[in-house]
């Protein structure tokens, strides 16, 4: 199980990487952490002509708060997200999600940007990004643009990123002090990809929840904002009736995949259970605060 032949270039700068992408188009692949790319190479499931290694572009690593939003560089390793004080302080949802990402050795190498760029349907970071209303900065020789997370994830491993574009960073608005978030996922074994999961946030004021945002992953082809369910919860007291309404609404938001990890009906059921637990968690966190 050895990778097929390819060419390899270590990018000297973002501009260099973009130039190579422009020249080679979808024949080229950006090599970040490589935790998803290299398995597909070893299995000969992907055959890029060129790998553009961005691991030396260290300025693309790290999470900082610029006073307005948290900027997570594309090369920030999952392990560094996990240790980041900025993330802990401003993005508690991400902090809660990150221990679910794979295992220590993969977190040490795998990157935030790689996960977002790949858009694996079961990945945690894309779901968080969507839940937090983040934006993605894409660069190419044509220039730089920002894409809202809501517009970025198109389908199964499909994103708004053009073949000549490179993901540079994510810009994520900090969670406000009056909101609470919760991250719940089910996976067969710890660190496995989720069979179902929800990234949830809301404001809670005397039992009433507002600004509810529910993003589902694992079951869907892409991280999915459950707008009907969110509407069913918005401005309501979190109680059995609201839970029932949200649960019912969820059926119109989700279209779970049928695969080895479960039937669509099962996944919808799991997502409903996780929704209940996430909103219970959010309201109890609010009470505790």
């Amino acid at each position, binding site marked *: 199980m050895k990778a097929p*032949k390819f*060419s390899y270039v*270590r990018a000297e700068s973002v501009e260099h990487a973009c130039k190579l992408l422009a020249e080679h188009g979808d024949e080229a692949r950006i090599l970040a952490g490589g935790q998803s790319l290299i398995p597909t190479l070893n299995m000969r499931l992907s055959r890029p002509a060129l790998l553009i*290694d961005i691991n030396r572009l260290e300025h693309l690593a790290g999470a900082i708060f610029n006073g307005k939003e948290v900027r997570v560089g594309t090369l920030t390793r999952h392990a560094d997200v996990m240790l980041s004080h900025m993330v802990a302080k401003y993005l508690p949802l991400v902090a809660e999600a990150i221990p679910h990402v794979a*295992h220590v050795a993969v977190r040490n*190498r795998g990157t935030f940007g790689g996960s977002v760029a790949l858009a694996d349907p079961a990945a945690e970071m894309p779901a968080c990004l969507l839940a937090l209303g983040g934006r993605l900065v894409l660069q190419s020789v044509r220039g730089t643009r920002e894409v809202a997370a809501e517009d970025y994830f198109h389908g199964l491993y499909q994103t708004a990123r053009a073949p000549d574009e490179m993901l540079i960073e994510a810009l994520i608005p900090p969670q406000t002090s009056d909101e609470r978030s919760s991250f719940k996922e089910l996976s067969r074994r710890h660190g496995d990809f989720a069979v179902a999961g929800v990234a949830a946030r809301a404001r809670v004021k005397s039992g009433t929840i507002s600004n509810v945002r529910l993003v589902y992953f694992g079951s869907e082809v892409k991280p999915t904002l459950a707008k009907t369910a969110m509407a069913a919860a918005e401005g309501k007291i979190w109680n059995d009736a609201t839970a029932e309404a949200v649960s019912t609404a969820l059926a119109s938001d989700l279209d779970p995949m049928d695969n080895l990890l479960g039937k669509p009906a099962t996944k919808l059921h799991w997502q409903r259970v996780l929704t209940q637990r996430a909103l219970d968690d959010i309201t109890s966190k609010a009470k505790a605060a």
Partner: protein
Amino acid sequence: MKTEETQEITCKVNGERITRLVPVRQHLVDFLRMDLQLTGSHIGCEHGVCGACSVRVDGKVVRGCLMLAVQADGQNIVTIEGLTDSGEVADLQAEFVERNALQCGYCTPGQLMTAAELLAEGEISTREEIRTFMSGNYCRCTGYHAIVDAIETTMKRREEASRAPRPAKGKA
């Protein structure tokens, strides 16, 4: 057919400076095993699941099969051979033997590389935390219980040793 592309890399492996020409498609563990005869890192799946190939790159444990050898250029690599020679986990290794926390031994270097990172944190973990930290390393023989025991015992011994009063300066 595309020609085999190679690049020269220079890296530190177990403290030794190494310069080699490597095919760019070769993964790190094949390089360590085949070019440097460091056969202590094992190949179990080559798709990043089993952890048998775990090595330390610039201070962090990573999957050796999910990194290209060419990416090791300029990096500091430590394999089980280097970890052994340094004595860093001599206590853990002794405890693995004592507790029989291995059978066939194929996963063991990877287990030790990962456990070394947990031990380096210098904190006491619960058994559940140890299990979770070690969850990326397959073992098909032991059932994990003995591995958890060995790590837990080593952790506690280190903690006790760190709290023991140090002998006064100048005394043997």
